[in-house]
């Protein structure tokens, strides 16, 4: 029996490593794996048979459970673990997915190259070295693989453009600066299956003729950086990286560059500036990176998930990949399903699935039995899709038609307590902070959009503000220099499109329909329900609640700072929020 602890970042954050240590203390020699994507069940411990079959998946494991696990291992009586074994319902989270990019995540030990090769790793690289670069690009073309970073540009086209550029030095760059605040697919791939990324990148480097590859990783991903560093060292040692790879003429070295905290560096020309050690301000295009990129040499940039599909495509053929999905969108897509969802985590589904399938069949619907209102796709560059459009297919074109975008994979579910104006404000706050400050439309435009949204949520919205927002949004889309600015207005435009009534309620009636905007809410106590337990009065940070024991209490609205703590502590549902 093998005991495997899921040690991805969020598993560790949930206490996986403490579980690991207590297992060791209990006399077990556990192994680790990466993230299987079931974040809502972390920490997860898997028990495999010696033959490699998953016998039990233990969830929400606590260090205290170690003794029981040790006992079960010793006795072979796995029924001891029934109480912490995954339910059939939760197991459906995985069974309804199709995993290509994440195929090894949470399955193999990411720190061990042998685990990767034992699972079919580096076979694709061997195969590719026997093909011409043009043949490889052709295979990618057949697969229909498109950039998974958000824009959805055909991968073969970029590779081919870089291939065609004549130069002695070319660079292959992996964009792992996953910045969408609500997406963590790329981190999971690097942490859980770093060799898959390395292999995909090597195939790309071979195709375009690059002898140097760089992975630009977010600084906020320390574990990913460590695992990738280890993996690169192992790959070098095993001859997959470096001079004359696997005895061929192909040589390629690889290094990591840690970002330093700037969302705009997800924009490829800003990423290049940053790689060169400069402020991450986007460059004008043209020239495109394929013509003149990093160090003014032809460069090709793809995102982690894109590369994570490449080895599979080579192994299984472009046709197999293209067989999945829709006419416009092939293969699978990974989403980070979060927000007010029951089962949140990483989800990889074939293109062409509906949003409803993902939210309800995989995610198990809304947490707390509330009503689903909308889902935000593509983070600050994307838009929301209201629940009545949940039949929309996961397809670049179909999603774009709704005003949202496929994006890099952030999928945030919102219920009826989420204020959509507040949501737009949240994203604009993000883009305004992350704007590099170079072009006027983005630097000042996002700031002004944020200010207008802010005044609306504070009850100071003016007549005409919706039109002003729309006008400003259109100009920012048209005028901004890079993708960050050009897409920054999307969350505003799409919430206006689908939830105009919420904007109007804020502006005309000075009312937030969801009660989320603190400035527009008043708290009061229902005298019929209040038992005078004094809990709220004790909790109130500003002493705004008065009343004696066993008599109904009263909130002084002048003093109230609308923190909502009274409502949170009341056991009788007596605090009314309006």
């Amino acid at each position, binding site marked *: 029996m093998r005991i495997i602890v899921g040690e991805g970042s969020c598993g560790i954050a949930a206490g996986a490593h403490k579980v690991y240590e207590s297992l060791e203390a209990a006399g077990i020699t556990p192994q680790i794996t990466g993230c299987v994507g079931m*974040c809502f069940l972390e920490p997860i411990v898997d028990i495999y048979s010696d033959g490699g079959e998953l016998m039990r998946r233990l969830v929400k494991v606590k260090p205290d459970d170690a003794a029981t696990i040790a006992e079960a291992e010793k006795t072979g009586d796995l029924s001891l673990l029934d109480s912490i074994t995954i339910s059939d319902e939760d197991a459906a989270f995985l069974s309804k997915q199709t995993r290509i990019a994440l195929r090894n995540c949470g399955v193999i030990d990411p720190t061990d190259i042998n685990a990767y090769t034992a699972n079919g790793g580096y076979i694709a690289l061997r195969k590719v070295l026997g093909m011409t670069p043009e043949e490889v690009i052709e295979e990618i073309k057949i697969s229909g693989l498109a950039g998974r970073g958000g824009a959805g540009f055909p991968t073969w086209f970029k590779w081919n453009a870089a291939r065609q550029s004549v130069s002695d030095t070319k660079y292959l760059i992996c964009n792992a600066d*996953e*910045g969408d605040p609500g997406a963590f697919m790329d981190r999971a791939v690097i942490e859980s299956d770093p060799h898959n990324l390395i292999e995909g990148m090597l195939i790309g480097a071979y195709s375009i003729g690059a002898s140097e590859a760089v992975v630009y990783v977010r*600084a906020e991903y320390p574990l990913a950086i460590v695992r990738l560093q280890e993996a690169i060292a192992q790959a070098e040692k095993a001859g997959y990286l470096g001079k004359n790879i696997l005895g061929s003429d192909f040589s390629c070295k690889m290094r990591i560059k840690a970002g330093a905290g*700037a969302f705009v560096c997800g924009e490829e020309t800003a990423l290049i500036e940053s790689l060169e050690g*400069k*402020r991450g301000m986007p460059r004008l295009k043209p020239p495109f990176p394929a013509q003149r990129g990093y160090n003014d040499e032809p460069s090709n940039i793809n995102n982690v998930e894109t590369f994570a599909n490449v080895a599979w495509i080579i192994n299984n053929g472009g046709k197999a990949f293209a067989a999945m999905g829709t006419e416009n969108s092939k293969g699978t897509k990974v989403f980070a399903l979060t*927000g007010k969802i029951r089962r949140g985590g990483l989800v990889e589904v074939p293109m062409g699935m509906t949003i409803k399938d993902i939210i309800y069949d995989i995610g198990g619907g809304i947490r707390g039995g509330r009503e689903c209102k909308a889902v935000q796709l593509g983070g600050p560059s994307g838009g929301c899709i209201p629940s009545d459009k949940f039949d929309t297919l996961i397809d670049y074109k179909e999603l774009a038609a709704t005003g949202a975008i496929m994006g890099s994979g952030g999928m945030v579910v919102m219920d009826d307590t989420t204020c959509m104006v507040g949501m737009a404000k949240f*994203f604009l706050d993000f883009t305004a902070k992350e704007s590099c400050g170079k072009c006027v439309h983005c630097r000042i435009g996002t700031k002004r959009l944020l200010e207008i949204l802010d005044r609306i949520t504070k009850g100071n919205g003016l007549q005409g503000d919706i039109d002003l927002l729309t006008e400003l949004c259109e100009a920012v889309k048209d005028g901004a220099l890079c993708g960050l600015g050009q897409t920054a207005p999307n969350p505003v435009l799409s919430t206006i499109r689908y939830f105009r009534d919420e904007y109007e309620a804020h502006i005309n009636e000075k009312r937030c329909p969801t009660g989320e905007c603190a400035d527009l809410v008043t708290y009061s106590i229902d005298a019929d329900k209040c038992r005078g337990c004094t809990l709220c009065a004790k909790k109130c940070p500003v002493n705004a609640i008065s009343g004696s024991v066993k008599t109904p209490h009263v909130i002084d609205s002048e003093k109230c700072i609308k923190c909502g703590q009274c409502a949170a502590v009341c056991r009788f549902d007596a605090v009314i929020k309006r």
Partner: protein
Amino acid sequence: MCHCKCNENSDLSALDGVLKEYAGVKGSLITILQKAQDIYGYLPTDVMYHIAEAIGTTPAEVIGVATFYTQFRLKPVGKYLIMLCQGTACHVNGSERIETAICEHLGIKDGETTSDGLFTLKNVACLGCCSLSPVMMINGETYGSLTPDSAIGVLENLRKESNA
């Protein structure tokens, strides 16, 4: 020699190894700054001037880079750096209330350090622990599924630990 008349007096020799390692390596300014920050805990002005001179660029260039990226700090931080996640999932699940509670409890705002030098609060972009939202990370340790009370509890435990 530092040309600026700043009050700092950093031990510049601590950086020698880093500067040697990256001597002549094009485009390594960000990496050097990261390593300098590891050494000094932040980026003192005299260190930035020193780096500019060592790698043959202008202070304006170095400072431009140092102030562009959120990772770099121009002031010393507290013993505990509270990185409060401001990602979408954390936002949807109430990170704003956590921030209010922490600010109120410590009497500091985002980017500030408590007068006893114990805590620095920093709002950060998504930490990628969305399913544990709302989340904060303090000196590498992640604390998830926070409530205002539990967040303050964490801080108080750290304070006790530090006093012990």
